[in-house]
């Protein structure tokens, strides 16, 4: 009995001592929710951190601090000297890169972030048009916590498939993969608002090009399947009904878009691929003059939409071939289906630039609204 008592005391003491190992009391730490990196002179980086401080009595405060140093940990020490509370990076949600730094290469910054166990791999990465410092330090009228604001902005757009998904994990996966590149959304300060302004293409950790936000839909369609999305199209009026819409453009909008994308290697020797997109949607908006109950017309319209999407997709594909950034997974598919010989980075870069892709889009308008 005595022995058991001694053991119980020992065990209990262990339990209590473990509780004291590393205290992190919420009121005594500053939570870094967002960090933005920019290029500074002499190989240094400027890190701008958004720090949220919880205060039990007053409203919680958000602070933006910026420091320049050669390593990111160095900037953190410097920022620490400026804040009244100990900094903790465990709640970090977004990592921003200034455009200049992105063009110089963000591989090192990503590597540093991955080495830190405090930071989760589900944080979002994005590029800022201009410098991230000016984006973060601007006093927005309606935004109290710029860190949380940017996180929510990116988060819901990625979840709704409006912009490319850019979690740290995906970026690292594609960055170290020899046959794939990654893309990040571009943020831009427009007056009093922050908006997503396009997609930045990367190749080997360097930003090599960008496309405007209007192309997001097509880029995402080539990357993955859509579960639900909306698309607005401008069709050539003549292709639908020459008598009514001559020289006129016809605006239509479709929603509940469901797509299925598949890439097939047709001929590895000739470097030929098939990109098949199965596109199902609901017609939502159209000129009231168009008699949409006419099946022939619907067929015509499907064809026109088909043509339009094919054109856009091939334009975007040509652009990415030109800048040599395979964010769609052609390389992965090639490696998965062609045996023999490791597909190296160099080899795939050459192949990707010259590959031929047959784009087949199959549009089907499933239904329209409740009124014809």
């Amino acid at each position, binding site marked *: 009995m005595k022995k058991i008592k001694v053991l119980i005391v020992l*065990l209990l003491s262990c339990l209590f001592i473990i509780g004291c190992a590393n205290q992190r009391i919420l009121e005594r730490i500053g939570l870094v929710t967002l960090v933005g990196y920019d290029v500074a002179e002499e190989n240094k980086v400027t890190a701008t951190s958004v720090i949220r401080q919880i205060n039990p009595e007053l409203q919680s405060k958000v602070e933006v601090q910026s420091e320049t140093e050669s390593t990111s940990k160095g900037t953190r020490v410097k920022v620490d000297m400026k804040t009244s509370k100990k900094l903790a990076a465990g709640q970090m949600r977004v990592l921003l890169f200034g455009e200049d730094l992105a063009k110089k290469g963000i591989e090192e910054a990503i590597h540093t972030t991955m080495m830190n166990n405090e930071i989760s791999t*589900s944080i979002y990465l994005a590029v800022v048009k201009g410098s991230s410092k000016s984006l973060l330090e601007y006093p927005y009228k309606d935004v109290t916590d710029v860190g949380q604001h940017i996180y929510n902005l990116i988060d819901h757009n990625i979840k709704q498939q409006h912009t490319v998904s850019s*979690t740290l*994990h995906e970026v690292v996966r594609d960055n170290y993969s020899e046959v794939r590149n990654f893309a990040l959304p571009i943020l831009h300060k427009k007056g009093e608002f922050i908006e997503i302004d396009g997609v930045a293409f990367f190749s080997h950790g360097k930003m090599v090009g960008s496309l405007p936000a209007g192309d997001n839909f097509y880029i995402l369609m080539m990357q993955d399947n859509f579960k639900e999305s909306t698309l607005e199209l401008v069709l050539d009026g003549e292709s639908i009904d020459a008598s009514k819409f001559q020289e006129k453009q016809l605006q239509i909008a479709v929603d509940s878009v469901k797509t299925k994308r598949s890439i097939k290697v047709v001929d590895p020797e000739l470097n030929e691929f098939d990109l098949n997109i199965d596109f199902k949607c609901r017609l939502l908006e159209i000129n009231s003059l168009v008699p949409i109950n006419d099946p022939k017309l619907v067929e015509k319209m499907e064809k026109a939409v088909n043509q339009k999407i094919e054109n856009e997709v091939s334009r975007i594909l040509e652009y990415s071939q030109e800048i040599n950034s395979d964010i769609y997974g052609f390389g992965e598919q090639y490696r998965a289906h062609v045996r023999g010989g490791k597909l190296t980075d160099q080899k795939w870069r050459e192949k990707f630039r010259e590959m031929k892709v047959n784009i087949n889009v199959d549009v089907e308008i499933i239904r329209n609204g409740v009124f014809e």
Partner: protein
Amino acid sequence: MKSALQISNDQKISSSLFFFVVTAAQIGVGIHGFQRVVVKNAGNDAWISVILASLFAHIVVFIMIRTLALYPSNDLYGIHLDIFGKYFGGILNFTYVLYCTFAFYSVIRNYIEVINTWVFPNLSQSFIAAALLILVIYAFTGGLRVLVGVCFFSFMTGLWILIILFMPLEYAHYNHILPILGNDLKSIFKGAYSMTFTIVGFEIINTLYPFAKEKKKVQKYVHLALLFTLFIYLSVILVSLVYFSEAQIERTLWATLTLFTVIKLPFIERVEIIIICFWMIIILPNLCLFSWAAYRGVKRFKSINETTFIWIFSIFIFFANIPIQTRTEIDQMNNFFAKIAFYIVFIYPFLLYIMASLKSVLRKGGSKE
């Protein structure tokens, strides 16, 4: 055969419990990061290596049990003494005790490293070691039946992690697995070889076998346990392969833990921290079983009380923890352990089986005359 064990019925355990014991003994610290070494060798065919390694384990277990079944009631130590005599058998017993101690040490050292890297960077190693060792002492002094109980609870309370394991599939690219068999056979076998550190643990039956109530049923449960661990390892490696890119796995030290960092549950944002702390319950049976196996061996040299043994053992381990500090040293130690384990667990049982069956044939021949 004077080396035979006298085990009373109330000390024996039900054969079905072997399932939990073997599963608990196999799953330990290796599963945190085995993807890295296996993928380095076998590329995207790493999952085939895992199956192969498990297949070898099945064969070895089959041989082990055949060897043990040659004796009515004896463990590996007794068999050594019977076949090789007092001196050479003693040396072999001593080697096996050292192996068990090394296994114990390797588990505790790796776990402390994980705690230090992921959860508490500044917590002293001796403190974690002491906390773990006290737990082991507590369980160990309860006797074998308590140890088996620990295994059972560790198994049952750890099952929820399996559900979480499949959540990262949201980011899966399934074509990472293709082309199947794109790597040559040699590299796949090499990959299987590098599974050693992760898959060992089932050799506990060497010492536990005489304690089974119905010896004939043991084999079935041990094979079932191996199948279950195969299922776990296979799920982990398949999820990792589709989730990570190949070069990324090679750079990730503890791929299983990194896998968990992407999961955000509504009530907890960093699941991996909870999982790492919870892992203490999963490695506890490892520690208990290895120390128990060492105890059975030491007992053959000198009759020693259980409590005295575990205290001396724990103090020894506690001080042995001090010289190895850096990651490179731990990596070297792991590689060294894997090499030794390969010979002791995967190669030696075949030799022993040949010797033991020769001996039994000779003995039968002798008694006929």
